[in-house]
């Protein structure tokens, strides 16, 4: 099989699993709507668009975190990560397949979250949508790599936010400020780095 076919098969497996079990996506959707509702009450009435936008980014990061902690649960519980590592495919394909599945979940959650945000708060502009799209790529790639690290540890779900949140700070800056070039730069750096590094994270030697 070619690299692309491996990646497609792995991503398809994750999406199919989600389609059958319906575990991650519904909880992400509920979480993001609940978070936006909380933010409505947390913000004083008549706050600026900028304040609401900042909270949107907080909601996106935490929703992504919720999805990412679930990303490797199936692999962990069934010991499937070992099987995947043993499979005769490039190990970075495991990362790419998983990252694509995570990206799909994120986009699906945001397809609901962004209109909800626009309705609840002060609308939405194209720049924010573009920034969210770019940020998703960075979140999915770094988050998938760190998710694979976190499941190997004893602390597991506890560990991922600690590893991931400092990495997410530049994403929030780029998103809130609307610096699309900066988000693209972040994606370029960390997609390549995560892609190259994944092999080491899952190998036992």
């Amino acid at each position, binding site marked *: 099989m070619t690299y692309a076919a491996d990646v497609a098969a792995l991503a398809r497996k994750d999406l199919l699993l989600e389609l059958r079990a319906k575990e991650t996506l519904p909880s992400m959707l509920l979480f993001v709507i609940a978070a936006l509702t909380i933010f409505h009450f947390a913000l004083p009435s008549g706050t600026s668009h900028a304040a609401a936008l900042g909270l949107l980014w907080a909601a996106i990061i935490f929703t992504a975190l919720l999805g990412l902690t679930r990303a490797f649960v199936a692999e962990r519980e069934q010991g499937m990560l070992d099987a995947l590592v043993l499979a005769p495919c490039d190990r970075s394909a495991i990362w790419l397949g998983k990252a694509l599945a995570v990206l799909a979940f994120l986009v699906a959650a945001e397809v609901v979250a962004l209109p909800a945000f626009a309705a609840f708060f002060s609308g939405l502009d194209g720049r924010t949508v573009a920034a969210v799209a770019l940020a998703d790529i960075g979140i999915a790639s770094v988050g998938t790599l760190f998710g694979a690290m976190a499941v*190997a*540890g004893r602390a597991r779900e506890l*560990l991922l936010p600690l590893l991931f949140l400092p990495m997410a700070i530049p994403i929030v800056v780029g998103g809130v400020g609307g*610096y699309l070039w*900066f988000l693209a*730069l972040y994606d370029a750096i*960390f997609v390549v780095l995560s892609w190259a590094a994944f092999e080491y994270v899952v190998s*036992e030697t």
Partner: protein
Amino acid sequence: MHLRLPTLAFVCTGLLGAAIALIFFYAPTDANQGFSQRIFYFHVPIALTSYACFGWGAWKALRYLRTRDERADLESYVAIHQGVIFGGLTLVTGSIWAKASWGVWWSWGEDQLVLFLVLFLFYCAYFMLRFSVDAGPARANMSAVYALFGVALIPVSFLAIRLSRSFIHPIVFNSHGPQMAGSQFFTFCVSLAAMLALFATLYQVELAGKRVDAHVRELRELLA
């Protein structure tokens, strides 16, 4: 090794003594900030040393991934450990300086200080990661990857903080070189050398301790 550590410690003590003497008796008092500006000679060298620690840790991590040499893994860990200590000191000295010159303990306008907060959070999680995974090649791999992400995060975070900043930090170095008088620059250089020597000494001490520790564990396993 037996000779190097005492020599290093001796040089380090001398440099630190010289730096402290220069800072308090030789460097001129700043016209604007007065006496409190002297903390600059501690704060900035400590910060730069912290970068050096993280950089060294990442270099050793890269070495580990290339050679699979367990010593490189330990060296990377020790360097990052020292980096976190120096980073913590940077936050403390920066806070004190901010309090003395602006009257606040924390200022989000200070790029470097905010960057150190981000790095401090990032590298503290390094220890959480390391201590939650059982010792072995898998842990060494993950630690190395995480350390390498750290050095990639430094410039990216720095850029991010620059983008989000307000302009109150005094820029001492700019593209035209250091904006310091000769005596100030000399004091700064001695202080920087002293901090780097301190790092080297502490690094060797901790490394020696950890190596003995590992050796004892090996011996105990042989006996058991």
